[in-house]
């Protein structure tokens, strides 16, 4: 490491305190101090609500409210919070660039890519001719490896993929050659396969321009691979900071220890063949389904295939992970299994239970956004009672003890029954939804991205909960996810979908044997944090090199 670079901090935050103003100020961030040296790659890590986004927005004075501000933020030699409006504008133009979580939202949807590039370029070249600016805009797009940049100028953000839009955002942020690039969850909204590409692009920018990067993320995998320094935020305070090696290797704070433990991925070597001998719970045979935008498209047979000769099975007591990127058909498969969507052809069968007392297995579904499926005005306990009442549970005492048991099964305390969903955390809400699904003693649970709305630590709790349910109640689970870590953690069998086709259907132990389909391999390679557990990679190494990503 070059000691000169440490000597020159690009960004210094001193005792930062942000509170929501009012008669009784609500503290959001308290006593946060850190420094980022020139060329550094600083990662601010924490769960949602930990104050990391507020911290980084306050560094550009972009908070959506009028805060009570304490402390000092100095970036590129300027005391950010004492700048005049004019100075602040110059500061934003020249000193810092920012990349946002959802590139489609961060670009104006009703204006072309080109017009947004040109209007920003105009700030730096006020007297340049239009065609001159156009050339520069094309150069900027080339700089972030966007193919056919000339054509892209004329189109709108929604006509580009998420990955390309994020590249446009990076190009926009880099136009002013800033000293510091703040990237706020830059990959969270993107498909797995492009996440690495975007991160690699940021690395490339950093190397080329001697750029300093502040990365805000909840994804520890990214951090381990690329950051030079890590700061962990929890409940508005920094609980730990230091070089990546030090923090990852030996986290000191309790919270960070728990966080890193939860994010650790172990290559699974589970023996799952015994489960495959059990009777079927659900089977898809040669299922086809195509969606058409209009009846004209149907006639012309121009449709979006959601299932092409799709065949796979879930055995009783087995956890099968259905993996794929958005548009792969995994949610359609779940809906077809629930009978919410009718397939064009093929057979979907819910098999009878082993004892034969029921002709069909009882299936319940858990949705992606737990809060959307709960009544916000009704106490959790009442909602659970209601489900049972509808299904003929007359005895209130029996209902109460059954609910108490299930709530315990999903690892919640009895106190949640007295609360309304608004007062539950994301993880608690998701477990309430799971509990509700379990009330009617299903033989099978279909869970559509149950973990995407919650943080790493809570993911761990929910996965544990699934594991316990399977062991205690023998429930089969079809888990729909885009996150391979979840697969490694819990699945017995992995089914990979792409464009409605099953391209992989293997036991989890064979998943990483290196003999998989090219696409599967790509998904595995793109998984952040994979390198850390596979080999003793040194994350402290300055200027971390791109790993599996490709451009």
């Amino acid at each position, binding site marked *: 490491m070059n000691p000169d670079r440490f000597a020159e901090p690009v960004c210094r935050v001193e005792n930062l305190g942000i509170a929501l103003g009012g008669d009784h100020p609500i503290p959001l961030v308290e006593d946060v101090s850190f420094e980022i040296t020139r060329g550094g790659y600083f990662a601010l890590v924490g769960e949602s609500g930990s104050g990391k986004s507020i911290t980084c927005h306050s560094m*550009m004075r*972009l908070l*959506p409210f009028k805060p009570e501000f304490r402390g000092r933020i100095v970036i590129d030699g300027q005391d950010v919070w004492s700048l005049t409006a004019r100075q602040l*504008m*110059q*500061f*934003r*133009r*020249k000193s*810092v*660039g*920012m990349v*946002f979580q*959802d590139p489609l*939202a*961060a*670009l*104006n*949807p*009703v*204006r072309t890519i080109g017009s947004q590039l040109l*209007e*920003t370029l105009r*700030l730096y070249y006020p007297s340049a001719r239009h065609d001159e600016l156009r050339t520069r805009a094309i150069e900027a797009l080339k700089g972030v490896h966007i193919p056919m940049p000339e054509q892209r100028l004329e189109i*709108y953000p*929604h*006509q580009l993929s998420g990955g390309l839009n994020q590249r446009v*955002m990076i190009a*926009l*942020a880099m*136009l*002013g050659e800033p000293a510091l690039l703040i990237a706020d969850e830059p990959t969270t909204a993107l498909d797995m396969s492009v996440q690495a590409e975007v991160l690699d692009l940021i690395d490339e920018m950093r190397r080329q321009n001697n750029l300093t990067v502040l990365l805000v993320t909840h994804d520890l995998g990214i951090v381990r691979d690329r950051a030079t320094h890590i700061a962990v935020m929890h409940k508005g305070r920094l609980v730990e900071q230091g070089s990546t090696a030090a923090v990852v290797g030996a986290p000191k704070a309790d919270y960070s220890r728990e966080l890193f433990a939860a994010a650790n991925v172990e290559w699974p070597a589970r023996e799952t063949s015994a489960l495959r001998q059990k009777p079927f719970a659900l089977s898809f045979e040669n299922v086809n389904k195509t969606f058409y935008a209009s009846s*004209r498209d149907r006639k012309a047979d121009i449709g979006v295939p959601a299932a092409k000769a799709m065949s796979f099975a879930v055995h009783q007591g087995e956890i099968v992970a259905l993996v794929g990127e958005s548009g792969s058909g995994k949610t359609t498969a779940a809906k077809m299994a629930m009978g919410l969507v009718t397939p064009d052809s093929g057979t979907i069968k819910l098999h009878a239970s082993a004892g034969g007392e029921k002709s069909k297995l009882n299936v319940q579904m858990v949705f992606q956004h737990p809060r959307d499926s709960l009544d916000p005005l009704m106490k959790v306990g009442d909602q659970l009672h209601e489900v049972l009442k509808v299904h003929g549970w007359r005895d209130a005492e029996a209902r109460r003890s059954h609910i108490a048991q299930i709530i315990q099964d999903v690892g919640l305390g009895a106190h949640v029954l007295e609360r309304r969903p608004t007062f539950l955390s994301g993880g608690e809400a998701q477990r309430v939804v799971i509990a509700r699904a379990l009330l009617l003693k299903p033989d099978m649970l279909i869970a559509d991205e149950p973990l995407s709305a919650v943080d790493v630590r809570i993911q761990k709790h929910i996965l544990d909960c699934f594991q316990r349910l399977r062991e205690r109640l023998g429930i089969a689970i079809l888990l729909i996810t885009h996150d391979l870590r979840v697969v490694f953690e819990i699945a017995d069998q992995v089914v990979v979908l792409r464009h409605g086709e099953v391209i992989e259907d293997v036991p989890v132990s064979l998943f990483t044997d290196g003999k998989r389909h090219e696409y599967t391999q790509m998904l595995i390679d793109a998984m952040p944090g994979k390198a850390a557990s596979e080999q003793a990679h040194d994350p402290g190494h300055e200027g971390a090199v791109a790993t599996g990503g490709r451009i």
Partner: protein
Amino acid sequence: MLLISRLLRAVVSLWVIVTLVFVALRATGDPILAIFNPDDTTQAALDAYREQWGYTGTILQQYLTYVSNVFHGTFGISNMSNRDALEVVLERLPATLQLVGCSALVMILVGLPVGAFAALDNGGRLDRTIMSLSTVGFALPNFVLGLALILLLSVNLRILPSNGYGSIQNLIMPVLTIGLAKAAIFTRFVRSAVLDALRLTCVTSARARGLSEFRIFTHHVIPNALLPLVTITPLLVGSMIAAGSVVESVFGWPGVGRLIVDSVAQRDLAVLQVIIMMVAFLMIATNLIVDLAYAKLDPRTALAHSH
């Protein structure tokens, strides 16, 4: 293609509306007895009117005659004025278009800037003042606002005529009555549309790039705020025709709104049917224009792609 299917749907809904109106107006009692006082009119006269105005035979027979007439381009004769119903309605149309057009202009010219100022001062004193005024504005019945204007501007100050049609002076008060009442509502839509647009990430992102606040407002906030407004504006303008019937009464304005009320009271079915067809046609046409405008403003819509 999209356009043709849309037009077809429009024709079908138009037909359904006309049929419903046709049946409803005849099912609520003998139209002749709704028009004439039998204490005043001999049976022979009533029968003659029934014959002349085509109220003989079953409703179905009357309906078939009506439909065949419409296909031949005749919309029937107005009982009230013994003239072609279409002519009666068209004669009133300029007054209504003047009133609605100018009111819409007032609504937009007042609502847009006031709503935008309120949004920019979200929660501030200006915002609270504007919102209170807006509440008063849309809670106040048109009737009361119109009379208050008459009492102030005609009776007390004597600067505008209280009733009548034809001159600019006549136009001012009815237009203010409708325009301001709708502006009170429109202001709220503008405010919330601008507030929503201000909260967009693309606005934060533009600010982060160092664009001036003015440029952000004109190039990022306004284009996004316009989208919901384009949808709501024709609805508000359409509701002006309904508001018109009251305002036209207060100011003696010879518009279509007043004609609707009279025609219902007098069971002038031919005229009513023409008006309903015309209003439906106007609404359908406006919706089409809105769709096209939306496509122009928002590149994400389906119509935008079919070009």
